[in-house]
């Protein structure tokens, strides 16, 4: 289970349009809150996200949950397979596979026509990339099959067979007499898969085919889901907000606050005894006393409110929780209580966290891996010890040197000059070059690539290029 992906994001972009200052202004400007982020989050790990304010870390957390629709890119969720979840887009794509491929080819052509210097505000290349991934996650290498209509039909059959297997498995759990039906469903799926394998062998074993083949993984593309499908999926993915004062409705009691998501997802009937028992169980897990259930948020201190927020997120038994600055508003003594609680719950409930914070020592304490963001880009990501022992990006280095510590040595802080540039008009080339003490000519010209320098240690910096 160690390195199994739970969420995988590819080239994720979130642009917020800026209001035009006059009707004569031709070009639409954007705040590039996330500008092409690619990371995987593994099951059972805590992924820490650090950066200064305005670097897009909160936006990334929200885009992951699709609280903001993503502008470009793909977010694939592996907590459930498409067979279990049956999103509507699967049938739509597989039924019309030849047309989809045509559409993709047209986009690729358009993207090729775009000149190098126009890519600044041009989504065509991103469009092609996004559509490619949308399809490939369902078809794998068969996107290059000669007879696309047949491939689509077979894939669709396989999909239906897969759904059947899941259904039968669920029935089997209730009643073990149904074993035969289950086995038949499994067998049918295997047969279709064998046919698909045949088709794969017929395809040309090119690099493109093999590359596309790796993507065939039955994950759910969150960007493709309908609103209602997303709402239901949020049972699995939850968020804890920064401000415990404004994120709780002041007119609801603690009991009502926690029951809201449970009733909304139809897990319990409103007002039932089971619901109340369950709420008390959850409250107990989060360190809230039983008699708090009829109290209102204003009767609690900040730390207690944050516990209510955690209880609310936890009530649905999620697999993945985004903690957006969950401890930043709390006093130090309360902060350590909440950190311990989060850590405990993670072990008990087998949770995965995306932990967003600007406090590096907190992030280091709680995270397995850390990503450092600057102006909408991920600049470095590695296991948390590696980031601190061996920071490869100059920005990470500067961040580490700017934290005041309570240790005796290293009394002099190192200063990173200047402010963060505006995300509407970020500097050309590497976005950090305006503040970087190692900046070279190439940094002002070309955006550095995202490279794996050491195993699991990614960085985007020209300095580290071999």
């Amino acid at each position, binding site marked *: 289970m160690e390195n199994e992906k739970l969420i995988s994001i590819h080239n994720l972009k979130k642009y917020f349009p800026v209001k035009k200052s006059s009707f004569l202004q031709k070009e639409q400007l954007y705040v590039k809150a996330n500008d092409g982020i690619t990371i995987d989050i593994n099951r059972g790990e805590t992924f820490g996200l650090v950066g200064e304010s305005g670097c897009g870390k909160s936006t990334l957390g929200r885009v992951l949950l699709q609280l903001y629709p993503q502008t470009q890119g793909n977010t694939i969720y592996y907590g459930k397979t498409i067979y279990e979840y049956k999103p509507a887009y699967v049938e739509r794509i597989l039924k019309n596979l030849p047309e989809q491929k045509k559409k993709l080819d047209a986009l690729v052509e358009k993207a090729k026509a775009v000149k190098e210097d126009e890519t600044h505000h041009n989504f065509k290349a991103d469009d092609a990339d996004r559509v490619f991934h949308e399809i490939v996650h369902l078809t794998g290498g068969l996107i290059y099959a000669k007879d696309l209509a047949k491939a689509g039909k077979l894939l669709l059959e396989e999909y239906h067979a897969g759904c059947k297997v899941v259904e039968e498995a669920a029935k089997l759990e209730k009643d073990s007499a149904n074993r035969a039906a289950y086995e038949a469903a499994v067998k049918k799926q295997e047969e279709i898969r064998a046919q698909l394998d045949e088709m794969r062998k017929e395809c040309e074993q090119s690099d493109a085919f093999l590359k596309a083949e790796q993507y065939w993984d039955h994950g759910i593309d969150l960007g493709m889901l309908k609103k209602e499908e997303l709402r239901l999926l949020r049972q699995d993915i939850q968020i804890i907000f920064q401000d415990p004062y404004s994120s709780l409705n002041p007119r609801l009691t603690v009991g009502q606050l926690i029951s809201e998501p449970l009733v909304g997802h139809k897990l319990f009937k409103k007002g039932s005894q089971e619901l109340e028992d369950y709420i008390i169980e959850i409250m107990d897990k989060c360190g809230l006393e039983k008699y708090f259930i009829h109290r209102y948020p204003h009767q609690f201190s900040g730390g207690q409110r944050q516990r209510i927020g955690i209880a609310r997120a936890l009530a649905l038994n999620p697999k993945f929780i985004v903690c957006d600055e969950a401890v930043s508003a709390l006093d*130090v003594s309360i902060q350590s209580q909440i950190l311990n609680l989060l850590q405990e719950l993670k072990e008990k409930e087998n949770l995965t966290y995306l932990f967003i914070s600007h406090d590096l020592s907190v992030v280091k304490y709680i995270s397995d891996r850390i990503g450092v963001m600057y102006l909408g880009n991920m600049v470095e990501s590695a296991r948390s010890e590696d980031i601190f022992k061996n920071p490869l990006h100059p920005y990470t280095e500067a961040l580490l040197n700017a934290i005041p510590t309570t240790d005796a040595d290293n009394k002099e802080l190192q*200063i990173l000059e200047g402010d963060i540039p505006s995300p509407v008009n970020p500097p050309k080339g590497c976005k950090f070059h305006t503040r970087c003490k190692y900046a070279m000519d190439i940094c002002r010209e070309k955006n550095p690539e995202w490279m794996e320098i050491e195993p699991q240690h990614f960085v985007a910096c020209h300095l580290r290029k071999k």
Partner: protein
Amino acid sequence: MAKLLEINNLHTYFETKRGLIKAVNGVSLSIEEGHTLGVVGESGSGKSQTAMSILKLFEKNQKIYDGEIKFQGKVISNYNAKEMSKVRGNDISMIFQEPMTSLNPIFTVNRQISEVLMLHQGMSKKEAEQHSIEMLKAVKIANPEQVNKSYPFQLSGGMRQRVMIAMALACKPKLLIADEPTTALDVTIQAQILYLMNELKREMGTSIMFITHDLGVINQMADDVAVMYCGQVVETAPVDKIFQDSEHIHPYTEGLLTSIPRLNTDRSSKLEVIPGAVPHPLNLPKGCKFAPRCKYATAECRENEPELKEVSPGHAIRCFHPVKRGKQ
């Protein structure tokens, strides 16, 4: 060394319908000339209210009930409003936490800095503008002429805080009170501001009262530290003693020091926790205020209130049983 500011047994209370809130409950502090005193504590510990008491920036229902504040040997705690306004901004000035809300959004930076200079130093408008630009230069703003003409919303958080500092230092005050000046800022910007404040302190010889909840920042900035809890000072000492080499330490200070994750904290170990929360100011416990959350508390602590006692020169602790360092 001469004491610039001395606070003796200060009590500042709020009168509310539900009773007296003892925000500052017997605080004694002193700041030496040219030194930085760091005041730490959780929210509600009375650190900001102590600062507000010095400048008498009070709410309607708030007043000093007891104690005195001496500034340069003169008692200022009984000054009336007119006398006080001569002190404010001129001898003692203050920087607040939230740089956006503490600058007036409808006036330019120039107007806001000039106002102080014209009022206290009797400068003409022109002189004040000139001086305002100089001050902006002193706080390392890259293009002072332009910033001088801009409105607060046109500046970033770090820039606004620099403007606040420029304004506070415009009259070369003897004492600068900085109430969480970097809490709202990013770490890289915080480092810039802390560096700047240290440099200005060295140049101008200003004493600083630095209020924060961040022990790391205290370690950077302060010469002496006062730890506050529930409106009282529970420990005062030179900074090195708190962080390294004192033999004894107050249990609350120990809790604060161990509950923050440090960069070298082992990830598999749990964080030390101070259980519970700060008591409600209307419902303070009997005896030592920290006793309900203290793991070393005895029956004596719950009955009687300890005094601030000197354990070694310059180091005082308000506790019956100060913890020996290193014993966990």
